[in-house]
């Protein structure tokens, strides 16, 4: 149990004099920051590089908002003007191409980062007690991200924008009884058109800030019980932790560097690699493209949607595929968090990841022949994983023994590493100082 006797893991309050002290006395902002991401926030010392992806998601969101604000200053949300205004941004606005390519590829990388973040949580069982709400907040952000990205993709008003919007909004027409009315309201007319475009523009702008607000609540919830870690065991004392600053600030900054390199490679050298060429053709309500496909990050969901032959059924499957994730903290009956100590779950994790990739592959292929069968099998497995395997495995599997504490596991690990290094190097290892080495007491 994560008791709250860990209140005093660190004692790094900052004392300020002069003007800063004057401010701090009235608004304790400096200690607030220091408690959040500074020397007074304890982090398990053993978290690995997969723990970089949360802060990377934050950076990705900031990049989306900043580039988006610039684009919004030049974008024209009309059926006649949208496509041309985007081209004007690309050609006539100073570095407009940079902002647009950064925004488009930034969305892709944002999803890549959040998906890795999510699978990290599945692997290390980070969604379990007491982090269920934290997990939920993440999922709500994910759903908002999907919505925001979908609406954003409609804005350039190319062929894929238009037909993507048509396919997806039509799903709402499948709702029993209210379907037709709902569709009419959504479209503001009898087809996808300018009214919808303006509405999407407004919401696209808004939702990013809703996500930003939720991200703050997400981190609030995170800080209540701190980060999980690759061992999945709780922090037991000061020897298990390191202050966030400087250890994790510098580690996160290094992560940003790697992220920006990948980002730059995409933006400067392959800006259209992840996009659909068809979206450089202006929207044409009279000509349906041969294959209507969403962006890569929505393909698994698209496959689930199409796996059910009935339209309403597909929508329900899609909704359930997202909703089932909310139940995962309770569907997983194992008390052990980390897959490292769960021999069977570990296998299932990789099979599930493969299943999602297969769904993505099917989602990007034409819905014919073997793709239909594969898509249906993969969809069934998606639900079997959560609804059948997860509850059963938690009961049947015998986990391997957990280490006593994070600190002992880290010491063991370091000893093993040094034993491997020592014979060749012949330098005496400096002793491990444990938790307090980073900040003064």
């Amino acid at each position, binding site marked *: 149990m994560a008791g709250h006797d860990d209140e005093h893991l660190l004692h790094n309050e900052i004392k300020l004099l002069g003007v800063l002290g004057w401010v701090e006395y009235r608004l304790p902002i400096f200690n607030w920051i220091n408690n959040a991401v500074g020397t007074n926030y304890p982090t398990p*010392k053993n978290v690995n590089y997969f723990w970089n992806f949360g802060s990377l998601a934050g950076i990705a969101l900031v990049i989306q908002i900043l580039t988006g604000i610039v684009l919004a200053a030049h974008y024209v949300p009309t059926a006649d003007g949208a496509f*041309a205004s985007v*081209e004007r941004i*690309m*050609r006539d606005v100073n570095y407009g*191409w*940079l902002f647009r390519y950064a925004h488009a590829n930034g969305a892709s990388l944002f999803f890549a980062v959040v998906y890795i973040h999510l699978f990290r949580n599945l692997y290390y069982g980070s969604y379990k007690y007491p982090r269920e709400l934290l997990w939920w907040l993440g999922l709500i952000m994910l759903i908002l991200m999907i919505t925001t990205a979908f609406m954003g993709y409609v804005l350039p008003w190319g062929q894929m924008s238009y037909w993507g919007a048509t396919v997806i909004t039509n799903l709402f027409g499948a709702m029993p009884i209210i379907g037709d009315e709902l569709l009419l309201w959504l479209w503001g007319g009898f087809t996808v058109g300018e009214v919808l475009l303006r509405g999407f523009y407004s919401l696209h702008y808004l939702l990013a800030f809703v996500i930003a607000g939720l991200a703050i609540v997400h981190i609030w919830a995170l800080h209540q019980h701190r980060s999980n870690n690759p061992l999945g065991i709780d922090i037991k004392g000061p020897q298990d932790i*390191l202050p966030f600053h*400087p*250890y994790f600030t*510098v*580690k996160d*900054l*290094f992560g940003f*560097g*790697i992220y*920006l*390199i990948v980002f*730059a*490679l995409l*933006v*400067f*050298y392959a*800006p*259209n690699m992840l996009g659909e*060429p*068809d979206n*450089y*053709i202006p929207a044409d309500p009279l000509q349906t493209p*041969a*294959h209507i496909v969403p962006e890569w990050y929505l393909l698994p969901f698209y496959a689930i949607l199409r796996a059910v032959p009935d339209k309403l059924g597909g929508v329900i499957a899609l909704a359930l595929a997202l909703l089932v994730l909310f139940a995962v903290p309770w569907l997983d009956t194992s008390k052990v968090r980390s897959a490292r100590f769960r021999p069977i779950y*570990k*296998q299932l*994790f*990789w*099979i599930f*990841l*493969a*299943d999602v*990739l*297969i769904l*993505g*592959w099917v989602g*990007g*292929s*034409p819905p014919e022949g073997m793709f239909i069968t594969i898509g249906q099998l993969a969809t069934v497995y998606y639900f079997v994983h959560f609804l059948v395997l997860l509850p059963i495995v938690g009961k049947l599997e015998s986990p391997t023994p957990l280490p006593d504490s994070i600190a002992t596991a880290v010491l063991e690990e*370091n000893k093993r*590493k040094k034993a491997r290094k020592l014979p060749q190097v012949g330098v005496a290892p*400096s002793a*491990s*100082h444990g938790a307090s*080495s980073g900040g003064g007491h």
Partner: protein
Amino acid sequence: MRRLVGVALLLAALAPAAVHAADEADPPKRVQWSFDGLFGTFDLPAARRGLQVYLDSCGTCHSLRFVAYRNLLEIGLTGDEAKAIAASHEVRDGPDETGAYFMRPAGLADRFVPPFANEQAARFANGGAYPPDLSLMYKARLRGADYVYSLLTGYGDPSPDVEFAPGMNYNRYFPGRQIAMPQPLLDGMVQYADGTPATVDQMARDVLQFLAWAAEPYLPVRHRMGLGVLVYLLLLTGLLYAVKRAVWRDQH
């Protein structure tokens, strides 16, 4: 298990191939373009030759609505040359002080004047088919430069058993292998000022330099800037890694 993930990734990578196997067209030829790669940039003399091909051939059917005549200075035309090209087309302007609309020769600030007044006129002149705008063609098809090059050089005689719709032409790279566009390039159809022999292949390569530029005029800046940004980021990230090692030294 990781192997399973590997297989799934591979399948995902093959997905586009699977999609296009369904079309009966041949896959486009592979061409080395000067604008590909980290240091890639346009071959400006070729782009200027391509402009000539565009003006003599493509531009009689296709519009180029996102490119302005002033942009031609970027591929090395003089202001007078660009003005002369603009002035050979008329645009509607007005109202003047009497409130009347009038026609005047196009100027540098105008965008390329389309060959037809509207889509209906374009279709009427092309047997019902619509010649799409070419400003973004380079990006609007998969492997755009390779594809359009292949299309322009892909005309030929069909095998005898092919059924032909009236007004259609055989082209092995067009989906369905029948295209409404008549073969737009014929050997020696333009006279290049720089003496380059105007073969179909040469003209196709040249016009693609022009069309790639028309679609991504900022490509050279993008590549140059990218190099600077990457060098900077690599140094910065290396530095951050060193700092990280130093900070974490007492923990290992």
